[in-house]
């Protein structure tokens, strides 16, 4: 019964997302929809490592930027279609993730040290890309506008919308699968108490390595989509700290360590950013001010995020009901 209910809930949500383009002709609303879906995707990817495993990465921009750059550079230099370039980017990101994971977890970087370490790694990649002529230095990459779907170029925004929606569904299913697998339970155990998890026979090193590899690879896929959609990338807009923050924010607001958290968070944060940008268009930075404020308020008053808070309420209500009957 309970399973049916939640299936119905997910089904309706998915249906709304799928038929949304049928109800609007507005390119602007479609654009907002695409932004929501892709930021839900990267935040979900972050969620696997940071929400479930509790390893707080402040540097996910490094995976995002890797995906964006590899797919774009391979496209421009070798004419490799981004459909494959995306996976090349993910592969490179996985290698980077495993390298960083190995160094961090082998040397037991925990808590804030891990966060600061990932931040430093992201900065290192930004500086390297910025200084390498292979990556066009600070100029970035301008991608050509075209309409060849085989080259990931679409004439209409509706196509981009469905591509990113299907990608988000796949990433969400992966996360769902992880959360219900042995790996997921290991990750949650690590988050709650790493030493206890290890003493109970969880191979914490291997679990964390798997989590960072999956998380990094999927984030790179999101980065590749971003590059092919926006058609321009530069070191600060792909590797910068602001990128890491915008990857983190939806999951924090929606609820870390929950499947729906990043999606709900993105559904709120992107329109909110657009609304503030609309009303304060003359002032660059207002939406980031709002993001900063949200970050502070959520951590202070809603540390479990919206989904976490609702779950807690539902649990309390159920307990009360059971107590009454």
């Amino acid at each position, binding site marked *: 019964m309970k399973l049916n209910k939640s299936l119905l809930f997910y089904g309706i949500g998915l249906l709304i997302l799928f038929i949304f383009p049928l109800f609007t002709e507005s390119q602007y609303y479609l654009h907002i929809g695409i932004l929501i879906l892709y930021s839900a995707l990267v935040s979900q990817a972050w969620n696997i490592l940071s929400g479930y495993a509790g390893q707080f990465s402040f540097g996910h921009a490094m995976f995002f930027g890797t995906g964006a750059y590899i797919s774009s550079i391979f496209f421009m230099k070798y004419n490799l279609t981004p459909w494959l370039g995306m996976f090349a980017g993910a592969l490179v990101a996985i290698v980077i993730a495993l390298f960083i994971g190995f160094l961090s977890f082998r*040397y037991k970087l925990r808590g804030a040290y891990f966060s600061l370490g990932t931040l430093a*790694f992201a*900065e290192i990649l930004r500086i390297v890309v910025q200084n390498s002529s292979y990556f066009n230095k600070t100029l970035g990459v301008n991608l050509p506008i075209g309409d060849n779907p085989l080259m990931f170029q679409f004439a209409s925004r509706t196509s981009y919308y469905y591509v990113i929606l299907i990608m988000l569904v796949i990433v969400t299913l992966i996360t769902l699968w992880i959360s219900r697998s042995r790996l997921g339970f290991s990750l949650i155990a690590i988050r709650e108490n790493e030493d206890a998890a290890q003493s109970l026979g969880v191979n914490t090193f291997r679990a964390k390595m798997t989590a960072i590899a999956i998380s990094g690879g999927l984030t790179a896929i999101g980065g590749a989509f971003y590059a092919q959609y926006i058609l321009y990338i530069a070191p600060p807009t792909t590797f910068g700290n602001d990128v890491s923050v915008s990857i983190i924010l939806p999951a924090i607001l929606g609820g870390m360590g929950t499947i729906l958290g990043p999606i709900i968070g993105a559904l709120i944060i992107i329109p909110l950013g657009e609304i503030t940008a609309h009303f304060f268009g003359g002032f660059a*930075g207002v939406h*980031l001010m709002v993001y900063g404020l949200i970050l502070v308020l959520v*951590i202070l008053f809603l*540390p479990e995020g919206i989904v976490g808070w609702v779950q807690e309420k539902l649990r309390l209500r159920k307990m009360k009901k059971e107590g009454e009957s």
Partner: protein
Amino acid sequence: MTAELFFQSLIDGILMGGIYGLVAIGLTLIFGVMKIINFAQGALLMLGMYVSYWCFALFGISPYISLPLSAVILFFIGMLIQRGVLQRMSGAPDHNQLLVTLGITLFIENLALVVFKPDFRSINLEGIPNTISILNLNIHTTKLIAFVFTIVLAIALFYFLKKTYIGKAIRATSINSGGAALVGVNIKKINYIAFGIGAALAGIAGALISPFFYTSPTVGSSFILTAFVVVVLGGLGNFLGALVGGVLIGVTESLGGAILPGSLKELVPYVIFILVLMLKPNGLFGGKVR
């Protein structure tokens, strides 16, 4: 590398390192007492720079004169942050504290962007020569002044913590806040003051930097990560460590700049950071607020 270039880089590095140390001392004080890694320290430094800039641009007051104003304003902003936000966070997980101070940073930086625009502003002090030459080496005058200030400030802070009641209470809180509370220290008040002092130090650093570094809304982020490196290198909570760490980073960065092409010298602090995190996470000196 010629000997001359080497010594020139060394001097530049030491002077710049003193400034890193100054930024790091505020961070280390806040960490030592409240166990909070304050991301917002860079944003506070930026505010300090703007106080200096506007005092200079509007009234022609030199940053060295308006420095106390920077310190006082930032002291109160720091107390406000501690009182309004961080006090409620005691006992929260590490990453939540980082996130909150990151949120505060985003807010302050972008507020500055909205109010002051992204322009890079600079202060040109007349009457002070740009550089002085000793033994064929050029020494940046304003950097030298900042360095001397830093040393004086570090000594003053040291005596403040050693000799005054508040200073002793701060140290007691950093070592054992429960015990300090038992003997009648008002922990909340001490936390306000300690955070205020930490923020004031960022303000002073900003004032001292303003004559030779462009003032802009995002200037803090170019210092904050280096300051973290310095703090971790010096051992969280250790003043002398922060100064020595600052000079070490300044010198390696400066020598790196003489060897490495392009802006690759920016890599130096991060690489050192990661090495220190992995090999010596307690820093070269380790310890409490001393």
